[in-house]
């Protein structure tokens, strides 16, 4: 099998993940895009592990670590999303502007003391 097949698939998955993270405004969809990008990286790691016949199995071990870190990330990320939903009643990321860098204090919405 040409080594380009998995590499092209992972490039396309990474690009689609980038599009989702940039274009979507629903926070859970953005987390899905991050998962897609991590999967693209994992596919590359496994491909190069098979390509170089690595004696230490570096690619596959690192893939397992990336999956574990992704599980930790999604758990914390969804907890944060739920907390944001409870405090703001919305998880559209472009409406959450309280941390924006402004000269004037916000007039509406961000009236936190």
């Amino acid at each position, binding site marked *: 099998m040409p080594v380009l097949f998995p590499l092209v698939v992972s490039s396309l998955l990474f690009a689609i993940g980038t599009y989702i993270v940039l274009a979507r405004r629903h926070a859970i969809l953005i987390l899905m895009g991050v998962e897609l990008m991590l999967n693209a990286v994992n596919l590359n790691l496994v491909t190069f592990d098979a390509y170089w016949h690595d004696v230490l199995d570096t690619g596959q071990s690192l893939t397992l*670590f990336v999956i574990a870190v992704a599980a930790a990330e999604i758990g914390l990320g969804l907890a944060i999303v739920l907390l944001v939903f409870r405090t703001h009643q919305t998880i559209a990321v472009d409406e959450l502007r309280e941390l924006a860098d402004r000269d004037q204090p916000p007039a509406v919405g961000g009236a936190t003391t």
Partner: protein
Amino acid sequence: MTVVEVLFCLLGLMAVGSAALVALSSHVVHCALWLVVTLGAVAGMYLLLAAEFVAWVQVLIYVGAVVVLLLFTLMLTRAPIGALPDLDGPGRLVSAGVAAVTAAVLVTSFAVSFRGARLSIHAEDVGTASALGTRLFDSWVLPFEVVSLLLLAALVGAIALSRHRVSR
């Protein structure tokens, strides 16, 4: 083309196509379900690339846990069943441009570097559970323990966040 190549192309088309549906669908729940198809196709590609244990871990963790967690959060944030009109932000065209440039750069650099290179997978390359487990507890013990600490910290953090009292 061999059988493996045909299978790999089909799985790749499936993964990329359903990932595009995740990016374009206007139903949030459908997005989560198309994500299952993508992750399953990636697990199939792991199997074809001789990473057997990684493929089963992918099915268990991603399809089994992560997507269920995503669906639960969709339910708890009261996601509507129907289509949502405003799921995309204003910068769709710019994002599509950035994604296209990313894809073009990655594909051309891979094509220049690895044109004509072929994978030859032997029997001793197959990452079975026993081979990978031996390797993991042999060369990768320290990172493994650090990952367990990280998971513990994430667990404590998630519990602390969800017990947080909203004061308004």
